[in-house]
């Protein structure tokens, strides 16, 4: 087992037809810890898959170095990296049966026949695909194919597992099941795993560590809770959480200590955030607040509230989403109970100020 280290890695793609260059990974420095489940998360085209393929050796960086453990593998073959990969479309060899699919890599590495047999049986048992060994991929269901793809990686006993959106081709129910199995499997094997996804739920449930990427640059590294509660910038704030964090234009003013002014309402700022906001007095900031941190002021009996106009109410069973706006900012509140809305569609929204965040409107980074 081994950790992975990126040192100033840059990968550029040259498109021959359009003669354009795209920087897929931009001066990446990243330490992926040994034995943990690390998730690379981001929208499509953010460089997460390229990062994974750089570890696999399917792409070679223009600049920088990649280490697996303490071996520098920047320009070496995939076969010399001791990694295994699960592809998004599974990439099973269609002309081989499941047994040969699992054994192909071991045969290439010239394992003795008996050991190959043992390992394939062991993995087939672990994944409960023993009775499928003689079948070809065409004869398998989507879930079974996914298991075979997983098995093909496990059977190699690699130092690192690389997974490129392995659940995206499964239906929603199966995906939730496999997610849990995957987690158990990784806990059991304890092998370093790098997992690419654009699905934040997958990332949050699976990842010991989540690396959020955008435009080839790392936006934030942390545990799920860190990302959710303390997003490093507006991109992460928007990307994590569903519905995403509300971002509202606001101004910081001094009046009995620091206050934040939304529309014409003044809200208190928690003491620990005041220090960082000193330099923003009388300036515009972006206020971030999660939908569940907005409450109904009347029901809670609060007297500090913002009067807003409700656009739409979505009833989701366990919860209610209230869409409203303040000036031009569209806002969503997630409430677990009923709401009281006046005849004129006016609603009194209470902001839980302990949970609010502040971002610089220009750099978009978190300031407090």
């Amino acid at each position, binding site marked *: 087992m081994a950790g992975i280290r990126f040192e100033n890695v840059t990968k550029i793609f040259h498109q021959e037809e359009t003669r354009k260059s795209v920087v897929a990974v931009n001066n990446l420095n990243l330490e992926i810890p040994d034995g943990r489940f690390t998730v690379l998360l981001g929208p499509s085209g953010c460089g997460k898959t390229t990062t994974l393929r750089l570890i696999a050796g399917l792409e070679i960086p223009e600049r920088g170095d990649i280490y697996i453990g303490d071996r520098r593998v920047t320009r070496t073959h995939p*076969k010399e990296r001791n990694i295994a*990969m699960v592809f998004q479309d599974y990439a099973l060899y269609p002309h081989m049966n499941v047994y040969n699919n699992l054994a192909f890599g071991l045969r*290439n590495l010239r394992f003795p026949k008996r050991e190959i047999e043992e390992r394939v049986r062991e993995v087939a048992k672990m994944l409960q695909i023993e009775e499928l060994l003689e079948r070809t991929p065409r004869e398998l269901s989507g879930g079974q194919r996914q298991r075979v793809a997983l098995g093909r990686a496990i059977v190699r006993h690699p130092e690192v597992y690389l997974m490129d959106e392995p659940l995206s081709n499964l239906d929603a129910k199966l995906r939730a099941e496999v997610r849990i199995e995957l987690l158990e499997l990784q806990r059991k094997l304890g092998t370093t795993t790098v997992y690419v996804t654009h699905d934040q739920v997958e990332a949050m449930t699976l990842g010991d560590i989540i690396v959020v990427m955008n435009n080839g640059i790392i936006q934030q590294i942390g545990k799920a809770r860190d990302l959710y509660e303390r997003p490093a910038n507006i991109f992460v704030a928007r990307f994590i959480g569903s519905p995403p964090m509300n971002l509202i234009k606001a101004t910081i003013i001094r009046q009995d200590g620091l206050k934040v002014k939304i529309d014409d309402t003044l809200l208190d700022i928690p003491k620990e955030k005041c220090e960082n906001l000193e330099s923003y007095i009388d300036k515009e900031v972006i206020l971030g607040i999660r939908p569940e941190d907005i409450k109904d002021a009347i029901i809670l009996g609060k007297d500090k509230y913002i009067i807003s106009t409700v656009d739409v109410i979505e009833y989701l069973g366990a919860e209610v989403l209230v869409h409203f706006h303040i000036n031009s900012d569209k806002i969503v509140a997630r409430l677990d109970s009923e709401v009281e809305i006046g005849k004129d569609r006016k609603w009194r929204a209470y902001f839980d100020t302990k949970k609010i965040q502040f971002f610089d409107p220009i750099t978009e980074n978190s300031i407090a």
Partner: protein
Amino acid sequence: MDKKINIRSIDWEKIQTEKFIRTKRLRNIFTITAYIILTTWAIVSLLPMYWMFVCSFKHIGVSFSIEDIEFYPSNPTNENYINFLQLDAPPWISKRPVGRWFLNSLLIALLPTISNLIFDSMAGYALAKMRFPMKQAIFWAIVMTMMIPEIVILIPLYRMMFDFKWYNTYWALLFPGFAGVGGIFLFKQSIESLPTSIIEAARVDAASEPKIFFKIVLPLSKPILSVMGVFGFIGGWNSYFWPYLVTESNKLYTIQVGLTSLMGAGGGAGVTGTLTFGIDEYGQMLAGASMAAIPVIIIFFLLQKYIIQGITIGALKG
């Protein structure tokens, strides 16, 4: 106000039924017309081949006249085949080596095709899935070469056969066809449609590049291999101009060249006679033509699936 139609008063069901019957009748008329036209044209299209086989079993002598035309041989005779193969020729006459012609045709249909399948699929794979410098330039060179008329290449190539001292040998007959560019293009088109992830999975599975080609790409390319194999065979069997140019002794003729050598139209260097043979010789010519046509017709019937598939490769996208 009275212009407003009361929707309920219209018998929608009746209208629908009438419309349905009308369309169905129209469709039937169309289908019948289509079948008549298509069948007529199919007869026109197949008539020459049919006529060749029928006439090859007829007695066609100098006295054969237009009144003797029948659409089936009422007195079938195998004399044309006997004449063509010179089965009843007296032993002191040096016979034309028709068996050799067939053998040569088989060689030119098989050997270059096999070599093309191997080397063109390798090159096509490299161009389709691998990354290397000059890839685009090499690909364009291949496409440009495909556009060049054959005659441009044939003249210098013909002279080269003399320089190589290959003229009138099997080398000249077979060797230049051992690799071509047309095949590369079609293999590239076809292999491009294989999922790249399978090849990458093999790479991660520690397979070497040759192993990826032989164990992954080739087995998955069976359809295109079959198509190219069938077309290669038919093309080789039917090839005429090159074998005609570079062979002189009739032991090297293919069946096609051998046939024309009897026609007096060509065959071998220096023979530049006009097509003068008359009715009395036509019987055995048709017998020979039938024999030359039968192998490809059999292949067509056995493998027409691949032929019909193959025509669309390269012409249609996706």
